[in-house]
C-alpha cells in the first residue's frame, strides 16, 4: 500500500455562444437628467460579473466613467430581449449589443453638446471624466451632466441608443454536417497533480495549474475568479459530485443536498493560472467567453493524473475511491496472473 503521485494534462477549445436557431441579445441605453446612463437589459447577472463587465463596456464606448453607468437587469418582462446568460455568451453577445447602443447614445449626446458648444459634432471628444471637449480648443468644454439636463429641459431631445447583436442561424449541410456553430473560441490547458492512496482509494488533488487564452480580458479579476472557482468545480465533478451515487442498496442513497457530496475548503488544491489575450474579431473590444470552460479541462486532467499515478483508467465520473480500489484489484489480479503464467 502506498501513496502514489501522478500528473495529467488536458486541453479544451470552448465555443462562445450557441447557434441552434439564431442567438440574439438587445440593449437600450438612455441618459437620466443628471447625466448618468441607464443600460436596460434582460440579461441576468448570476454572480459571473455581467453587470460589472457590461458597465465597463458601456462606459468605455460612451466615454464616461464606469460609475456613471447603471445596469438595469431588473425585469425580463419589460427589458429588451436576451436569450439568456449561458454558453459563456453574455460578455460577447450582450457586450456587442451594449456597444452598439452606447455608440448611438454617444452620437445623440454629442449632437446636443454640439448645439451647446456651437461646434461641429465631428470636432467633439469625450474625456472619460464626464466632459465633452472641442478638440484642439481646451477652453471650450461642457459637462456631460449639463448636456443631459439641457437635452431634456431646453432642447426637448432624448440621449438614447438602441443596440442589437444576433448570430444568425446556421443551417447544417445535410451532406457533410458542416455548420458554423459559434462566434469565437477560447482555449485552455490544465495540468493536474494528484496523490492516490492505494489502501483507501482516495485521491487528493495537489495542484491544478492552467493556461488560458480568453481574448481581451475586460476585467482580469473576474476572469481569475472564474478560473479559480471553475478549477474547484472541475475537481468536484471529477471526484465527488453525482445525484445518483452507486450504493449496493438504493435505500441508502442521499435524500437531499445536505447529503450531496462536494469537496470543502480542506480539499482545496493549489490553483494557479496564466491568462493570454488574443482578441477575437467578433467580440466587443475583442472579448471571448470564459465561464463554463473553466470547469472542463480540470476533469480529464485529474483523471489522466490518476492513471499516471496508479495505472487505473476510470471512464465514468465521479472517480470514487471504490472505482479506484476495484481498478487496482483488477490490475493486480492481471499482473499476478501474468507473473504466474510467465514462470
Amino acid at each position, binding site marked *: 500500500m502506498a501513496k502514489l503521485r501522478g500528473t495529467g494534462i488536458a486541453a479544451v477549445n470552448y465555443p462562445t455562444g450557441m447557434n441552434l436557431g439564431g442567438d440574439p441579445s438587445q440593449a437600450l441605453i438612455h441618459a437620466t437628467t443628471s447625466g448618468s446612463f441607464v443600460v436596460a437589459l434582460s440579461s441576468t447577472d*448570476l*454572480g*459571473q*460579473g455581467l453587470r460589472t463587465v457590461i458597465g465597463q463596456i458601456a462606459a468605455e464606448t460612451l466615454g464616461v466613467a464606469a460609475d456613471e453607468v447603471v445596469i438595469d437587469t431588473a425585469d425580463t418582462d419589460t427589458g429588451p430581449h436576451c436569450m439568456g446568460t449561458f454558453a459563456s455568451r453574455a460578455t460577447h453577445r450582450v457586450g456587442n449589443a451594449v456597444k452598439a447602443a452606447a455608440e448611438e447614445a454617444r452620437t445623440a449626446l454629442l449632437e446636443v453638446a454640439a448645439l451647446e458648444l456651437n461646434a461641429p459634432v465631428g470636432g467633439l471628444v469625450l474625456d472619460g471624466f464626464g466632459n465633452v471637449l472641442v478638440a484642439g480648443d481646451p477652453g471650450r468644454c461642457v459637462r456631460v451632466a449639463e448636456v443631459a439636463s439641457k437635452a431634456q429641459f431646453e432642447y426637448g431631445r432624448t440621449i438614447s441608443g438602441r443596440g442589437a447583436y444576433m448570430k444568425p442561424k446556421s443551417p447544417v449541410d445535410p451532406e457533410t454536417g458542416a455548420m458554423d456553430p459559434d462566434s469565437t473560441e477560447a482555449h485552455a490547458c490544465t495540468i493536474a497533480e494528484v496523490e492516490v492512496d492505494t489502501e483507501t482509494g482516495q485521491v487528493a488533488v495537489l495542484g491544478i495549474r492552467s493556461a488560458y487564452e480568453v481574448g481581451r480580458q475586460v476585467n482580469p*479579476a*473576474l476572469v*481569475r*475568479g472564474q478560473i*479559480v*472557482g*471553475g*478549477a*474547484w*468545480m472541475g475537481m468536484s465533478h471529477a471526484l465527488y459530485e453525482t445525484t445518483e451515487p452507486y450504493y449496493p442498496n438504493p435505500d441508502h442513497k442521499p435524500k*437531499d*443536498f*445536505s447529503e450531496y457530496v*462536494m469537496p*470543502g*475548503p*480542506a480539499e*482545496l488544491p493549489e*490553483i494557479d493560472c496564466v491568462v493570454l489575450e488574443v482578441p477575437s474579431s467578433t467580440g466587443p473590444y475583442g472579448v471571448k467567453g470564459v465561464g463554463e470552460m473553466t470547469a472542463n479541462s480540470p476533469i480529464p486532467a485529474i483523471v489522466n493524473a490518476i492513471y499516471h499515478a496508479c495505472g487505473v483508467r476510470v471512464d465514468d465520473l465521479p472517480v470514487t475511491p471504490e472505482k479506484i480500489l476495484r481498478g487496482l484489484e483488477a490490475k493486480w489480479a492481471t499482473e499476478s496472473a501474468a507473473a504466474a503464467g510467465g514462470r
Partner: protein
Amino acid sequence: MGSRIVSFELCGREVEVLVSPMATLQSVLRSQLGYTGTKEGCRQGGCGSCTVLVDGEPMMSCLLPVEDVEGRRVTTIEGIAPVAGLAPIQQAFIEKNAFQCGYCTPGMVVLTKTLLDHHPSPSRDEIIDALGGNVCRCTGYAPIIEAIEAAAAGATTDAGRDAGDWPDPSGER
C-alpha cells in the same frame, strides 16, 4: 399552542416580535423583521448561508426556534459593519474578490467575525476548520481563505471601530 411574543437584542437594539410556534430565527429575521441579509439556503443546517451570532457564537438560524433566543443577543450581517462604511472583514472580502453570486457571503463574513474574535491570528488550518459548515459554490474557497488571512493580518476586528460608530461586540452598553 398559540403565537407568543419573543424579545431579544438584534444588532444592538431590543426587538419584540409576535411569532408562531417553532418559527425559526431565520424566517423571523427575513419575513417579519426585514433583516434580509441572512440568507436561506438549504433550511436544514447543511450550507451555513443562514449563519448568525447568538451571544457571539455562530449558529445556523434556519435550525434555531426563535423562542430559543429570548433575552439573548443576536448579531446578523447587518450588525457587522459600522454605521458608515465597511468592516475590515468586508473590505478584505472585496479586495480578494471572495464572492461571485454572494449568496454564501453573509454567512462567511459573520463566521469570520467570530473566528477573528476568538482567534485574532488563525492558522490556515484553523480557518479551514472554521469554514467547514459553510458552503460556497462559486469561488472554490481559495479567495475566501485569502480574505480571512488578509483581514487577520491587516487589522484585528477592533481596528475598524475607530472608523465609525460600532455596535459593541461585548453587548455591554
